[in-house]
């Protein structure tokens, strides 16, 4: 909460969704570090034997998904940059 207020007031830069997402990840990791028994409760709730393995596999899935998503975004930007460069070249023909 204090971090969010700091971002809004002092940096004037905020992408709320992204900030909340990463804050959520950090909070979860901190919680598990402070209260490791939470993992057992989580596992019992969903019938998962090895929660750590589940978290690792889920993380790998999320990371690959993000890489794929970023690749598509970079590709879109590459096409956009090339289009701009080509338009400028045609406008400034010698």
């Amino acid at each position, binding site marked *: 909460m204090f971090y969010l207020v700091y971002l809004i007031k002092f940096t004037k830069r905020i992408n709320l969704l992204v900030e909340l997402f990463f804050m959520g990840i950090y909070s979860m990791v901190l919680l598990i570090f402070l209260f490791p028994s939470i993992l057992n409760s989580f596992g019992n709730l969903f019938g998962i034997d090895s929660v750590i393995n589940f978290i690792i596999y889920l993380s790998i899935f999320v990371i690959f998904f993000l890489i794929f998503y970023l690749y598509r975004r970079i590709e879109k930007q590459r096409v956009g*940059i*090339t289009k701009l*460069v*080509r338009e*400028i*070249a*045609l406008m*400034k*023909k*010698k």
Partner: protein
Amino acid sequence: MKDFKINESLKKEIFFVIPVFNEEKVIGKVILDLQKNGFNNLILINDGSSDNSSNEILKYKKNGLVLLEHIINRGQGAALRTGIDYCLNQKNCKYIVTFDSDGQHRISDLSKFIKKLEENKCDIVLGSRFLLEESKKLVPKKKVILLKLALFITWILSNIWLTDTHNGYRVMNKKAAKNIEILMDGFEHASEIIDEISKKKIKYCEVPVFIDYTDYSKAKGQKISNAIKIFLKMLFR
């Protein structure tokens, strides 16, 4: 192949698209050769060169020579697209020739391309170094392996069997130029063009061309790592 002569009025309807990247040493000779043979519609695209290519090109500025400049380097594919887009807006443009700036292509081979197009046998004519015995013998061995691999991959991805898929010497009419969409910036555009020909069922044919391999042009040629990049880019296109 019976000799076909390109008359002076047809020469005025032929536009050359020549992407240039750091070719200050040879571009002057390429331009001079074309102008001496009566071809003045030269569209040169300086693709963010870091040398003096631009000034070298402007030394030969005459009626018809146009220099388009990419403010940053984007690749041969992007440069070709810029040149082709320019030509499509010219009313007197009938045929578009993609021509390398390193002096590997011979202007004397052009008549073979134009003959096929004038006879309406195809909308795009592709040059092939492997259809000419004298040219085939001069291809460096490493390049032969790479190009043969490229043929096989092109056949798998585009279902077209050619003898030379990465030859920069092509001539197309306006109909083919409008249909072929080049989105890839780098050398992979050559594979993309073949893919477009296949997808859009564009009439194509091949003609034999001579490639002049010099130490200069061999040093600038494609590496094996480029070939792998091209394959991966075409796979994930």
